């Protein structure tokens, strides 16, 4: 009984670290992107201010239960993903509840948040939300393929589906990181990472948010705060997922922070260079090179 309480404490602590690191990362990345654009960018503490302001204001209106449940599903998805993700290798304190489910659980749990958000936006009744959701779902289906192919290739290579064992197999120097031992599967996974993060070239899904009358204006106050926290946690957790899969996991927090930042930076780096894709283009893109890479990875291990 007591180790469960301790477990909860450590997991909560882990969550706080990841939350703050998430917000710090967004501000650093926004500063870098601004610098590239010749601007100063936001202050490093801007995200914290936003959060405090959002949670401070009182929510004024709601479109019904489902509108409520949208953000709740979203945050539950983000935190849930975090809970089942082993952060630090070898240290039981930081491997959260990874023992409850393996890689497939993570794979499918991402959908929990997505579906919830889709329904919430739908309930909002705003026409653009439906368009945004349909774009997101369509794009996501094709992103999943190279990702699944890569996962299967790794599962066969390491002969396991549990993430902790995969990380264990990658210990001992860069030589036996997956990126080195199985480059093709890693390439496929990296391509799909771009899609999963929904950053730059594939961020058509969140495009309506930028227009003032987009769904987020409906989500204000504490709802928007919840969405912001979830965004921060999700980016870090997904980065940790790719770290564990491809870059040999982390033995301590510093290694984790550096690696997650670099991983996230890959997407930002590509995002800045490429213009935004239309849905058919992104769907066809993912059915092109990434798919071939994925199939190649499978054939190699066939």
């Amino acid at each position, binding site marked *: 009984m007591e180790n469960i309480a301790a477990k909860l404490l450590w997991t909560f602590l882990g969550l706080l670290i990841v939350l703050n690191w998430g917000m710090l990362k967004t501000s650093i990345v926004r500063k870098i992107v601004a610098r590239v654009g010749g601007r100063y960018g936001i202050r490093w503490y801007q995200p914290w201010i936003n959060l405090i302001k959002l949670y401070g204001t009182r929510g004024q209106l709601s479109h019904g239960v489902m509108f409520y449940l949208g953000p709740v*599903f979203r945050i539950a998805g983000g935190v849930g993903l975090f809970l089942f993700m082993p952060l630090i290798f070898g240290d039981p304190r930081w491997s959260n509840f990874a023992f*409850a489910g393996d890689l497939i*659980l993570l794979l499918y749990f991402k*959908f929990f948040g997505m579906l919830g958000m889709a*329904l919430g936006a739908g309930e909002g*009744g705003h*026409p653009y939300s439906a368009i945004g959701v349909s774009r997101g*779902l369509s794009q996501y289906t094709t992103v*999943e393929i190279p990702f699944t192919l890569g996962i299967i290739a790794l599962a066969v290579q390491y002969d*396991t589906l549990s993430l902790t064992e995969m990380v264990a197999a990658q210990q001992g120097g860069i030589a036996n990181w997956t990126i080195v031992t199985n480059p093709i599967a890693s390439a496929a996974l990296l391509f799909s990472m771009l899609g999963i993060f929904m950053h730059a070239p594939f961020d058509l899904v969140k495009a309506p948010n930028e227009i003032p009358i987009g769904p987020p204006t409906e989500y204000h106050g504490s709802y928007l705060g919840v969405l912001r926290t979830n965004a921060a946690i999700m980016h870090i957790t997904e980065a940790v997922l790719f770290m564990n899969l491809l870059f040999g996991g982390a033995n301590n927090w510093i290694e984790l922070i550096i690696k997650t930042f670099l991983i996230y930076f890959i997407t930002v780096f590509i995002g800045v260079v490429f213009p935004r894709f239309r849905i058919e283009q992104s769907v066809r893109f993912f059915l092109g090179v990434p798919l071939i890479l994925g199939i190649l990875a499978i054939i190699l291990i066939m």
Partner: protein
Amino acid sequence: MVTPIYIIAIALGIAFSLGFFSKGSKGIASSLFYLALTALTAIAGQWLIAFLTGDQSTVEVFTSGFKPPFSISLQMGFEEAVLLSMINIAGLLGAVYLFDQFKKYGAHLMITYLLLIMGLDVIVMTRDLFNLFVFLEIASIAMAGMALITNEGKSVQAGFKYLTATAIISAFFLIGIIFAYNFGDSLYINELLMSEGILKAGMVVSFLIIMPLILELKPFPANGWGLDMYQATHPAVGALLSGASVTASAYVLYKLAPLGGEIGYQVIAILGLITFLGSNLAGLKQSHTRRMLGYSSIAQTGLVMIVIGLQPMLGEMTLWIAFSILITNFLAKSGLFWLAGIINKDELKSWGILRKHPILLFLFVMFVIALSGLPPFPAFFGKWELIMALANSGNAWWIGLILLGSLIEAVYLFRWVGYGIKDKSFDFSINCSTYKTIPIYIMGAGLIAFVGYYLNHYFGDVVWYFIPLAFAALMFILDFLPAKLKNIIAIIGMGGYAYYMYDHFLGVDNLRFFFALIFIVGGILTLIPGFTKSGKRLGFYPAALLMFSGLGMLISATDLLQFFIAWEIMTIGSYLLIIRGKNSIKHAFSYMLFSLGGAFTMLAGFAFAQSGNPGIGLEVLSNMNYLPGLAAALIAIGFMTKTASLGLHIWLPGAHAEAESDVSPMVSAILLKAGVFGIILLFIGIGAEAATNHPLTYTLGWLGALTALIGNLGAAFQEDAKRLLAWSSIGQLGYILFAFSIMTHLGWLAGLTYTANHAAFKAILFLGIGGVVFRTKTHNMYEMGGLIKKMPLTFITVLFAIITLAGIPPLSGFAGKWLFYNAVIMKEWYLQGTIVFFAGIIAFLYSFRILYAVFLGHLKDKHRKIKEAPIWYLIPQFLLMGFIMLFSMQPELILRPFGDMISAYFPTDALTWDNGTALTSLGYWNGFRVGVIIFILFGILFGWLFLTSRKVKKIKSFNIVYAGEAPERPETTHMAHNLFAGYNKALGFLVAPGITNIWKWIDESTHDLGDFIRRIYTGNAQTYLVHIVAYTVIVFMLINFSI
């Protein structure tokens, strides 16, 4: 016992004496006439009873006091007694039916009729060749005379064609007789059959005797004259033609067939096959009812000819098979002709009038089902024995062609039934005077009596097997009760059956118990919404119980015959259910065609499987030694028509969508599992060890994956809610097929989990959407929207079902996906696995679509006042949701028994459990813990958000971007129409109706072929004579130069 000679004496005596009565005294004449007919039937009946009670042996009746070769003799054996009673009963009932005509035409017509019946009787009995010729003449002249009853231009032409044709045929027969007498030195048939003189004289003698008898049976190219008689004469004449005269001439052919020797039999069989296929094909394009019935009865005669032709191979079964085909044709055809007489309109559509007379409609549907050779009617048992015998003697081609022919026949028969049940375009009324309906009732009763006889004959000892069928039949009788009462009776009946299944199968054979659970308990749940319906709801409960009894019997079937009968009964029941939908004639018709096509392929598969094995038990599937690959493939195709796999799926969207709102869940969630159960049996038969890379399971794997992909993709682009769910069923069934064809422990475990999940969530979805459709009266999703406010409970259940469908973690759907992943990786089927995963993710598209378009978005004005779905729709949904919750929180409770079931067949690398965590060699998963974490997490966050924004104001969905100004057309803001336009552009081509076009092309080309074939009947009497002469000469040339 009255010597049969009195049949002739009475008939002729009274016929001659009828001459006394001029027009004046009609009363005495008609009473004498009916007396004569009853006497004839009595004599035949007396002999039949004597034979049936077993102590009577074949009797030879001599005339003119001398022994046979020197005088004419009649034989009264068991076959003759049976046929005589059939002919005389047909005569008596026909006379009752023609009561008004006899009153109008008086003594002369009575004489003709009496002589016709007497002629047919003597044809059956006589053992003398020339005597046969004389009485054949009497029968054909009398029949031509009967054609003149309707006395308008057309029937006179038909009579003329009939008379000229039979005259030419008897002329040929006369030549044959004189040859036979000259070379065989006798006219006594028993001697002729043995005489070597005929064989020595070369083929022409036996040819000239057998060919006229074949011509008499109206073989395919040369039967224009026969068809016109069916079309233009009084329906009672048609009934006599197809009932009595065909039976008599078929028996004569059977009597004289040995004359032709080995080649003779082959020729008869081949000509019979050409007739069977040709006239069925020609029947396809018919719109005139009686002409179509003519084609169908000629096809049945063709089938009887095949049976006679295959006598050397069938041995003593020939009579039994021929009898079962003839008795069905006799009872059903006469009934249908008499019905046609009552309706006396020519178009097929006009049979919709029968909807006003339920009893006649019931008889009509029963007759057609009996004719198309479906169980439990005699023709089916005949066909079954024929196919089995053909398989045992190893000629597969015959099986294929015979089944193809019967499928074509089923096409035009069921199209006709569709009109009968559903068509409303009639504007006339019919008079059902008693003397016209009594014969039909008697024929119907006769058919049911024979069904009882055949069932007792085949399943005498296992009669308990047919209790559910009896219960369904009981519902036919109770159909006059109010719907609610019938619903209660049905549910109690199903409950009793569930209890029987429970204590009969639990622990004994868990696999069957699991499927019994889905079928029967699922059935009860889907019956509950029936309480919403008021009034009588005629025809629903018998059909539903027929389907469920078929499903139940499928489970408890021990051999191939029981399995096949259960399969067909289930198909008939589901067909009668689906056709109840408002505009579901076309879809029910295509459903029936695919099911029948599948059933016939399965029958062929069973036949190949059982050939070479002693019995026909289900274990025969495990050691097929005659063309095993083909047999397994055929049986698989048969089952796949029910699981709507790719290529055989085009019937499903229409059939499930157009069915009534409480029929769709029955048909979709439960009926499809019958196909799955079949496939499991087949795979058990194939056996685990042989299946590592068995070509069939490999192809089925790929087929399952592609079906999943196309099914889900198809669902994503549907506008109609029920069609979306139907397409999704196709996708899910593709999953299940894929899972089972992996043929490993985990694969089957995933399959079973999926079957359980699909049964649950598909029932919820169809019931939920059924409730929505019940309230909003429309299927199209873009006309719905915002129903979450009005129907919150339905939204909850549908949300749960969608989460299970998509396989999102906390709920049991994820268990299926997880097992899938492990099974695929261990089986190394990576590529197929990826397609299935891609399909799984597409499932999100339509999951979101149905939730968004139906429940979220803007509430339409016309839906402002609708209430929540009726309570009867919600109860089963919540019960099923409870099951899903149980399965999600405690997966071990269900997966462990599944595991024990499967380890009997696949012992290696099973799923192992340690306190709640399922372990496979690859990964681990603890359903309970994952569920608890997520629910707690969800609860905390929901509570926190709820607290921080308590005093929030509810805003109507219009007060969004337009700041309170409701847009004039709310539809524009509910973006439910063509939701995935972008996606459609990218991947839409995959769902283009390619396969539907292929099937449409097949359908059109067969119809064009049928149309081309029937063109040979130009209507010119002379051409028909040319046909007869040409047919004889060509067949002679072929035989002559082929020896």
